[in-house]
């Protein structure tokens, strides 16, 4: 069991959770992820590390309550425990050698891009961080990113923070202003990563994207997470999750990403049904 040390809502949809997992905390690097399972009935879901503290022995995850599992996860409290927490999985993001980087986070992707920005900042790289949200109430990790970026640009779809537009517009503007990036890293919805890659391609800027396909085992044995990169399918869990943004087939990824959508409603209803009954799995508290 993996005890939950702290749970904190970052906004109405997004939760930050600190989990005690000393072995993983010692090993995990920016870009790597964990698979967790809440309890015996649970599914395995991948979540990318947001922060780790090797001395405290904790790994922090940030997630958005969108489906049955994340909704259930969001209801857990400090003192509860997760049944399974496996990692580090995937490859660390290749950040060595970058001198002038732009890290781009879309929505929840901001939390996943944060450790890379922090690593780059700590290793003497000039880091611009562009983040994008639907509206200002959903802005994530503003202070944390401020502390580890050269320049922070926050965009909102509705302009409610006074900075209306898409992350790609901000990126284009920075390129036009002469920002001479040697690395662009994008984490967020597939459609956003697609357009970031399209923005950098004409300039030949090395662009990494962190893909987020469906996963089951997360160790390379089932192919559920395959992503079309160039002419071949690669496994995001072992070959990724970062890939060359100019080679990924985003349309294929978006299509595969919704394959299980029809099941999600049923899963949510079942999860809500369990909650209404006060939880049927015995291990949960305060449901």
């Amino acid at each position, binding site marked *: 069991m993996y005890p939950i040390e702290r749970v904190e809502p970052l906004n109405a949809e997004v939760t930050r959770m600190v989990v005690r997992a000393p072995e993983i905390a010692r090993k995990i690097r920016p870009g790597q992820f964990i698979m967790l399972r809440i309890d015996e*009935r649970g599914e395995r879901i991948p979540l990318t590390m947001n922060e780790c503290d090797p001395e405290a022995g904790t790994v922090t995850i940030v997630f958005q309550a969108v489906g049955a599992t994340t909704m259930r996860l969001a209801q857990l409290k400090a003192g509860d425990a997760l049944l399974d*927490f*496996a990692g580090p*999985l995937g490859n660390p993001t290749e950040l060595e050698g970058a001198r002038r980087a732009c890290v781009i986070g879309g929505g929840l992707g901001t939390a996943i891009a944060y450790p890379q920005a922090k690593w780059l900042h700590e290793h003497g790289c000039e880091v611009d961080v562009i983040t994008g949200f639907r509206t200002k109430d959903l802005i994530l990790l503003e202070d944390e990113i401020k502390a580890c970026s050269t320049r922070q640009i926050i965009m909102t779809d509705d302009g409610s923070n006074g900075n209306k537009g898409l992350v790609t517009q901000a990126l284009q503007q920075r390129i036009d202003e002469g920002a001479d990036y040697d690395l662009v890293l994008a984490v967020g919805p597939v459609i956003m990563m697609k357009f970031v890659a399209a923005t950098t391609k004409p300039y030949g800027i090395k662009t990494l994207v962190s893909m987020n396909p469906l996963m089951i085992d997360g160790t*390379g*044995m*089932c192919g559920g997470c395959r992503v079309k990169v160039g002419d071949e399918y690669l496994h995001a869990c072992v070959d990724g999750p970062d890939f060359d943004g100019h080679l990924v087939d985003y349309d294929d990824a978006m299509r*595969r990403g*919704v394959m299980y959508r029809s099941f999600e409603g049923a899963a949510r209803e079942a*999860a809500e049904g369990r909650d209404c009954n006060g939880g049927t799995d015995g291990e949960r508290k305060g449901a």
Partner: protein
Amino acid sequence: MATSYEVNRQKEKTPVSELDPADRAKTFDEVALGYTEEEAVAEARRCIQCPNTPCVGGCPVGVPIPRFVEQVAEGNFARAYAIVKSANSLPAICGRVCPQETQCEGVCTRGRNGEPVAIGRLERFTSDWAFAHPEEAAAAMDGLREECAAGDELACSIWRGAEGAVSQDLAGKRVAVIGSGPASLTCAGELVKRGCDITVFEALHKVGGVLTYGIPEFRLPKDLVQREVSKLGDKGVSFEVNALVGKLYDIDELMEDRGFDAVFVGTGAGLPSYLGIEGEGLNGVSVASELLTRVNLMKAYQFPEYETPVYAGKKCVVVGGGNVAMDAARTARRLGADVTVVYRRGREEMPARAEEVHHAEQEGIKFLLLTNPVRILGDESGWVSGVECVRMELGEPDASGRRRPAPIEGSEFVIDIDMLVVAAGSKTNPLIAKTTPGLEVTPRSLIVADERTGATSKPGVFAGGDAVIGAATVILAMGAGKRAAAGIGEYLTQE
């Protein structure tokens, strides 16, 4: 050799009860129900106790088959179990999933004129009986040990290598076992008998490897796998799940930082192969291990009570002719699909067990042999809608002796489907090879290991099972695990 019982001259095996094919295709309940006591005795009495005992040589873990069969024939079921268990740490599993026709039963003397003795069913019977009668089974194990201690040679010859038989000569030694499939479980079981301190590291959240995520419930109930595993736990083997070696730790760290004296690598061959044809990324297309993992490990057939979903179409094609293809086809059938197995060679060449093909046919699965998919077709929303296949003919035998199939030009045709499962084999995960300096591997990432001892090129590191030989059978993996345990014993005692 004389028998102490009257030999049953019946040419055929004593039949075993099975669930009705029409009913069972709707559930994941175990298909074969196993022998009753009367049936087991009748079948055991078909054994003529021939003096050259070819069956023992045919068993990769060397179960003293005539000895235990004789005990069943005489109704001494507890003692029969003790004898089986002395050589085989997972008899309830082997009795169910071994390809006996190419192993012990394939060389049975009775099989020369009629059917061989149903050794697998008898092995299963003894372990299921022992599960239902735990006290008598334990007493029989103790009895055998005491007879050996008292100097009884026959008891000792059976007991050799079993619990308590060898002194605790590995006490104080620590061995890390990587992976928890059949090779690893067997290796752990053998070493713990000798007093060795064992920790098994498993990447997934449940132990058992292919026994847990691969072989379906209707062939091998998962409770039974966990029961066999928990017996190892009772003996003192520790298990660390959620521990992917190569990521969480590497082998050098296990040996240097965590103080393991030796390591056994039993990581299997779990990386799926694809067909490499157009359309493999369409929705509704998966590899067999995804379907089987969702259903077996995650219990997706009980969705939404269990939270992992599994997609099942109405019309499914499974590509492949091995046991995994049969498991996938029968699983898709139970999820409600109409299933056709497409295989590029003929029936004779199918690597699947004859019994599995028979069970699949009984359950209404159709076979399109000498047929190969060339392209997977999709609809405008990106879901699979059909598979274009070509008829094949068998040409001259290739270097491996198998007749090479070749497409018949102009014979292409399309099958309309909404689900396709690829069961085209599996490869070795290169993670251990990549993260273990000094470990010699083949270009296919198979670990190079000594056949007798399992020793690799890296001192103190041993390997066995599919990680060494590529995708094979449970019992071959167990044989390798048993040999490696002996090899590790030699290594740890010669220092």
